[in-house]
């Protein structure tokens, strides 16, 4: 029995949700992914509670330090150990079943350990006062030590956690994915639905893995230098070049921006792979592979340098030409999204769609993703950036893209769940989750964007200052809608029934693979 299976068996509650069948012969593609998925939902519970807590902290005036602590912990938990880990778990399972390669050995264990240990260390640092926000705001971590906001040891702890998380995202996970795609012997007994790189559903995964490695390496070099100096192994003046804010910030956002784009490539490829399985006429073909692949390539090419839009308001330190370049490339990603929209709608229109909860959840995630895309394009425009940068618009954008991608992955998870666990989920509860979570996510996104349009600052502990408290209340209400949806989803996982106990389960989606 694999170590991951044993760990899962000992996890209370989550064993009931994601425990794998050790006897079904698929343990080697199920165990580590299932453990990552289970862990991601633990972090989602943390992130969700903190998300609801933030408006309450402001409403009941519980203090700015508590607010910034909740803000940092919420963002960090939502983005990395939840959203990224959920993606890692499902995509590795998908890849394993498509190319017939096991997910075993040291690498998946390291993926799991680095992400969760790193996130835990970062969380401890945050609880000790290391409130630097999701994007670190370098050089704030160092300045915070200098002006007594947190201790040097807390800084080292926080950076160690971040380094472990980055190692997982930039190297371990992409290398595992590429290893499965290009190396090792294919095993027929592990193949669920064989696919090649000609398939848009696979191409996106490979592109995303490469983006993470290529765009993340400069940040890893800089972060490693800084960390080694913080440990006292090399003198700080040796790494003076790496500690300059402009160096760190540009390396950070080159990666952070492309991290989101890589996650988008990954999840869109997941939709491209899953949608055809639910077409009413059984054709199992996208409207156009050519158009689907073109969307992925356009997204890849335009996303590389669109990160300049993060620095538009640094004018003239970011030359106007690069600001406008970031503007145009960002809108170029919109062309890729437009092709994806057409591919998905034309596929459904041409072939009809079975109304199964999994694909419906994924499609509603896609709707939220498009809302996020529209908000991203607008804020990337140079003129609008000077009104929106630093406002709640940006938080709305960040939260919406993470929620949208996670919802699409939950839809894909719904599809893979029977193979992963040997159990099946309730369609009725799936539909309720879809309705409540979609309403909550759309509502929260729109409220945050409207708050930003009204000038409400992001990462700001005093919404009453500019009369923005009403937006905070609405964020709370829409956040609670999402929370109720997630509770129903958790109940659905808890009450999942073994396939052999459910009449007609042979026709469940996984059988179609």
């Amino acid at each position: 029995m694999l170590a991951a299976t044993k760990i899962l068996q000992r996890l209370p509650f989550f064993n009931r949700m994601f425990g794998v069948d050790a006897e079904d012969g698929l343990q080697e593609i199920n165990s580590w992914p299932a453990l990552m998925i289970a862990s991601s939902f633990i972090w989602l519970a943390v992130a969700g509670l903190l998300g609801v807590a933030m408006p309450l902290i402001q409403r009941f005036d519980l203090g700015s330090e508590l607010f910034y602590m909740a803000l940092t912990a919420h963002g960090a938990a939502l983005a990395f150990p939840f959203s990224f880990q959920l993606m890692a778990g499902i995509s590795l399972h998908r890849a394993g079943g498509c190319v017939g390669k096991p997910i075993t050995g040291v690498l998946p264990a390291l993926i799991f350990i680095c992400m969760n240990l790193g996130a835990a260390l970062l969380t401890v640092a945050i609880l000790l006062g290391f409130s630097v926000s999701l994007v670190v705001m370098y050089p704030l971590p160092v300045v915070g030590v200098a002006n007594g906001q947190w201790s040097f040891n807390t800084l080292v702890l926080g950076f160690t956690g971040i380094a472990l998380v980055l190692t997982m995202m930039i190297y371990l996970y992409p290398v595992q994915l590429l290893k499965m795609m290009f190396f090792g012997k294919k095993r027929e007994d592990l193949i669920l639905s064989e696919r090649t790189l000609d398939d848009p559903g696979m191409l996106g995964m490979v592109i995303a893995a490469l983006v993470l490695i290529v765009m993340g390496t400069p940040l890893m070099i800089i972060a490693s230098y800084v960390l080694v100096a913080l440990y006292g192994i090399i003198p700080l003046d040796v790494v003076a070049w790496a500690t300059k804010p402009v160096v760190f910030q540009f390396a950070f956002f080159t990666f952070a921006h492309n991290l989101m784009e890589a996650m988008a490539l990954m999840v869109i490829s997941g939709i491209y792979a899953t949608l055809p399985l639910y077409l009413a006429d059984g054709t199992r073909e996208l409207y156009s592979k050519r158009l689907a692949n073109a969307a992925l390539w356009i997204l890849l090419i335009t996303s590389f340098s669109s990160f300049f839009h993060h620095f538009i308001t640094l004018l003239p330190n970011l030359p106007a030409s690069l600001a406008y370049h970031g503007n145009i490339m960002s809108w170029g990603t919109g062309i890729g999204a437009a092709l994806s929209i057409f591919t998905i709608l034309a596929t459904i229109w041409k072939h009809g769609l079975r109304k199964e909860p999994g694909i419906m959840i994924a499609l509603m995630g896609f709707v939220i993703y498009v809302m996020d895309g529209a908000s991203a394009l607008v804020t990337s425009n140079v003129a609008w950036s000077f009104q929106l940068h630093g406002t709640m618009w940006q938080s709305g954008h960040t939260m919406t893209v993470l929620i949208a991608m996670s919802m699409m992955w939950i839809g894909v998870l719904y599809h893979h769940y029977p193979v992963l666990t040997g159990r099946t989920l309730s369609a009725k509860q799936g539909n309720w989750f879809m309705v409540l979570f979609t309403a909550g996510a759309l509502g929260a996104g729109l409220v945050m964007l409207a708050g930003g349009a009204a000038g409400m600052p992001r990462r700001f502990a005093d919404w009453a200052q500019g009369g923005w408290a009403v937006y905070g209340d609405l964020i709370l209400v829409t956040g609670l809608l999402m929370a109720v949806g997630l509770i129903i989803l958790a109940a659905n996982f808890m009450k999942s029934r073994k396939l052999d106990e459910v009449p007609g389960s042979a026709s469940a989606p996984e059988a179609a693979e």
Partner: protein
Amino acid sequence: MLESFYLTGWGAFGMMLFMLVPFMAVFFYVVISKSYGDSSPSKAPQSSFVKMERAWIGLVIVVFVAVNIASIDFMPTTATAKAMASGEKLTEVSFTAESWSYDITETKIEVGKPIRFSGKSLDTMHGFAVYHPDGKVLFTMMLMPGLEGPTSLVHTFKDAGTYTVRCLEYCGNSHHEMRDELVVVAAGS
């Protein structure tokens, strides 16, 4: 009209809705009608899909290009260039930002005079966002420590009143308390 479109957050919100609402209407129509309604395959010929595909891509490109070209006139670089070209003397306002306050060389400003704001951060990342008395963000600037030159742009105030300056780049536990004021007075007063 274009000014209130490109130079306000609500203009941005309107643009976002302009893209989102038609998409959602079509998306929900297609998904609902082809899953909960008649899910049989479409009888439309492939050629009609191809025509639709071309029309859609063309429409998207036209809208994207038009929106971004029209916005050039409202970019701060354009405003700066116009102010320089007008021959009118720029009033220089310099400031520094440090956790959690500003040091601004001149906080009394006249309506109608082009002002060049130039700022630097002395410690961590800070912002310098100027809010109109009605609550609207006029512009925001990012201040990154360690850069040789300041962040800078030119703005001409149109209304008298007390404008609030806020930091919009998270800078630590008292970030929300980092603010100042600019008093804009009628010309000649």
